[in-house]
């Protein structure tokens, strides 16, 4: 009887200690920023590493898309609509949803001149849904907010599902 109880106590103590340490570690971990994802303002401010594979996310600035005539290369400006812009060049097939004003995530390498060479471009639908007739109004009114929300939300992961 005593033996069993003692054994059980040992087990519980051991496991609880481990779990407590784990919890502490998790809370510590949450304080760290571990993304390879950078919003435009960080790129602008030199917070993103140069010459390494990173992701940049933002909105494709209206009127910034320039397509080459001969091949598939394209260049555009990625912006958070708050004055922080990143020039992106890409060569390849763009996703159907790629259009001006759309949120995208570009994966590639940041050059020392601040130009971003993408090897993948992913269209990213944001969390806003609205009927077409509403959208003109809404975009005009909300574009600032939309841009930031895209950037911020993808920055702060939430373990319990969003």
């Amino acid at each position, binding site marked *: 009887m005593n033996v069993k109880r003692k054994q059980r106590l040992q087990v519980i103590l051991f496991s609880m200690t481990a779990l407590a340490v784990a919890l502490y570690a998790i809370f510590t971990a949450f304080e760290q920023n571990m993304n390879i994802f950078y919003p435009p303002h960080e790129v602008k401010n030199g917070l993103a590493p140069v010459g390494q594979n990173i992701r940049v996310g933002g909105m494709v600035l209206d009127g910034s898309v320039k397509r080459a005539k001969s091949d598939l290369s394209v260049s555009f400006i990625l912006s958070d609509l708050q004055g922080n812009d990143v020039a992106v060049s890409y060569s390849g097939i*763009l996703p*159907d949803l790629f259009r001006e004003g759309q949120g995208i995530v570009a994966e590639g390498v940041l050059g020392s001149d601040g130009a971003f060479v993408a090897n993948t471009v992913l269209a990213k639908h*944001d969390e*806003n849904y609205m009927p077409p007739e*509403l*959208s003109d109004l809404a975009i005009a009114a909300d574009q600032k907010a939309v841009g930031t929300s895209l950037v911020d*939300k*993808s920055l702060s992961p939430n373990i319990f599902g969003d």
Partner: protein
Amino acid sequence: MSAKTWFHQWGSPRWFFEKAKPVSTVLGLLSLVFLSLGIIWGLAFAPEDYQQGNSFRIMYVHVPSALLCQSLYLFMGIAGFIGLVWRMKLTDVAISAAIPLGMMLTAVALITGSLWGRPTWGTWWEWDGRTVSTLVLFFLYFGIYALRQAIKDSSTKANATAIIAMVGTLNIPIIKYSVDWWHTLHQPATFTITEKPAMPSEMWLPFLVMVIGFYCFAGHNVISRMRIEILRRESGSAWVRSIAMSGEKARYVF
């Protein structure tokens, strides 16, 4: 009724079998109403999206099934925990009823997601956080399913399932976090409890109806299959035999 006797009832398959019947019926009817309302509303009356056009309507199936398959796994984990600690037979019945439904809904979420991904992302499949964690969820379900196939003895089966379901459930948030860390393509939450949805009410109301319909359906499905499973497991006992003899099988089961 004291708390203790209330709790004890749940240990009795027979009590559950009898008490759950009306619950299951009500849920079944509710799900019928909500699902048909939601489908008609969502497919025919809700407006198009300004960017995606009609393809966004996949949401009305995709999101509820994605939500539900996670809820069902959580449900299994909790049931497993209760079963292990209080040694209750009913929990394994519940798990055995939840597995196929959960696996199916995970598959539905994966398939509708990838159908949706084609027009929006330009690809059927992308190694993105949400997609990967859903895929892993499917693997988790499949693992449990395969384990149950391999064990003959029913009580061993119950305990083994409970162990792995618990460990798996603990892991789900970590899986989600680990993949989110690396891959972010899937859109962030449209619906949160704290904020108003980022979509007009003509769009989210039918969606809400669909979600409720899905949950009712899952409740109905799990409970009625639990009841059938109880009959199968207790087929040797007197009360089941008396039902079988009474010629009122149909009335009891359905």
